[in-house]
């Protein structure tokens, strides 16, 4: 069954590329997040969005709540509902479950990387399979997979990152839902725009025009931006350090995600060529009949 095979291929690709991504993050990205959280913890009691929750609390207690030592022992004492009032503005509060620092947090990061990579492989592999099928079952290879991975990196990281650069913990930003909506708009438009630009075989210049419009559209709409400086919560030496960490973080995440997407694309294409193509090659499926117009559209 095609679905089962797509799923098993995605799982294989997802485990391999997710583990690779987790290893790359471990080297460069996670240490920067941890360093930013130290500054975030120090700045939080005085930071405008979070300070109001602690008006009545003595300063040392407030500082303790925002440390990222993951104080599990303090979770269990806040059983009364009143203590939960302030959880939703700052998601690091101890009231909700969170993995303990160290091994538990690392394990959940690995699991989340594998789940995300498997999810993206489940998007990448079916699209590669359709593309491969539309080219007579000869197109998918590790080389074309690298190109698909590069385009996926552009569409999911680099182009959205122009409007919404990768954030470190503690940075101010516009409202979460509006940023997620713009990110989704940018990824869909970028993916469709790149596909229109690169995959068209007929009316190529018309498709390139459509592709250019799609690529420009999210930036014409504009990404939601914070009211002030993204690092307004930090002052003095912490602000200097956070600016340095942020610059390093953008480069570290760009490199790690690029290698991850190249691996995900190449492995997906190899999986399509080996295991999916026999089920999708034109004429091999009794149930699937395509009109010539549909074949051209693919």
């Amino acid at each position: 069954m095609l679905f089962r095979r797509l799923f098993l291929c995605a799982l294989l690709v997802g485990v391999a590329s997710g583990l690779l991504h987790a290893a790359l993050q471990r080297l460069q990205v996670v240490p920067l997040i941890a360093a930013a959280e130290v500054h975030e913890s120090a700045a939080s009691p005085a930071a405008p969005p979070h300070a109001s929750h602690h008006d009545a609390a003595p300063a040392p207690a407030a500082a303790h709540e925002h440390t990222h030592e993951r104080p599990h022992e303090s979770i269990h004492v806040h059983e009364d509902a009143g203590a939960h009032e302030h959880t939703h503005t700052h998601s690091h509060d101890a009231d909700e479950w969170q993995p303990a620092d160290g091994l538990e947090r690392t394990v959940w990061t690995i699991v989340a990387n594998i789940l995300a990579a498997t999810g993206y492989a489940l998007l990448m592999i079916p699209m590669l399979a359709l593309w491969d099928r539309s080219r007579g079952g000869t197109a998918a290879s590790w080389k074309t997979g690298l190109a698909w991975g590069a385009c996926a990196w552009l569409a999911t990281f680099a182009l959205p990152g122009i409007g919404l650069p990768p954030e470190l913990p503690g940075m101010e930003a516009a409202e979460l839902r509006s940023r997620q909506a713009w990110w989704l708009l940018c990824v869909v438009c970028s993916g469709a725009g790149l596909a229109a630009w690169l995959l068209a075989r007929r009316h190529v210049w018309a498709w390139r025009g459509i592709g250019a419009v799609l690529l420009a559209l999210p930036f014409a709409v504009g990404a939601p931006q914070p009211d002030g400086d993204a690092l307004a919560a930090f002052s003095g030496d912490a602000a200097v350090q956070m600016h340095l960490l942020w610059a390093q973080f953008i480069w570290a995440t760009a490199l790690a995600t690029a290698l991850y997407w190249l691996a995900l694309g190449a492995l997906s294409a190899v999986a399509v060529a080996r295991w999916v193509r026999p089920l999708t090659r034109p004429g091999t499926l009794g149930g699937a009949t395509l009109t010539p117009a549909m074949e051209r559209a693919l």
Partner: protein
Amino acid sequence: MNAHPTSLGSLAPARTGSLFTQIAAALLLGAVMVYGVEFSASPVAHNAAHDVRHANGRPCH
């Protein structure tokens, strides 16, 4: 993978579900998984995947 695909037992169910239905189902499952890890507002999902959301450049807080 097989020079005679019609001999594959796994081809039999393909007649009931068309190519595009199965492709669409895989795409849908992938979208749900990505949403769960990278965008779900559930605090548990957020905290478990926190570092991955930041590392992938997704809006997180």
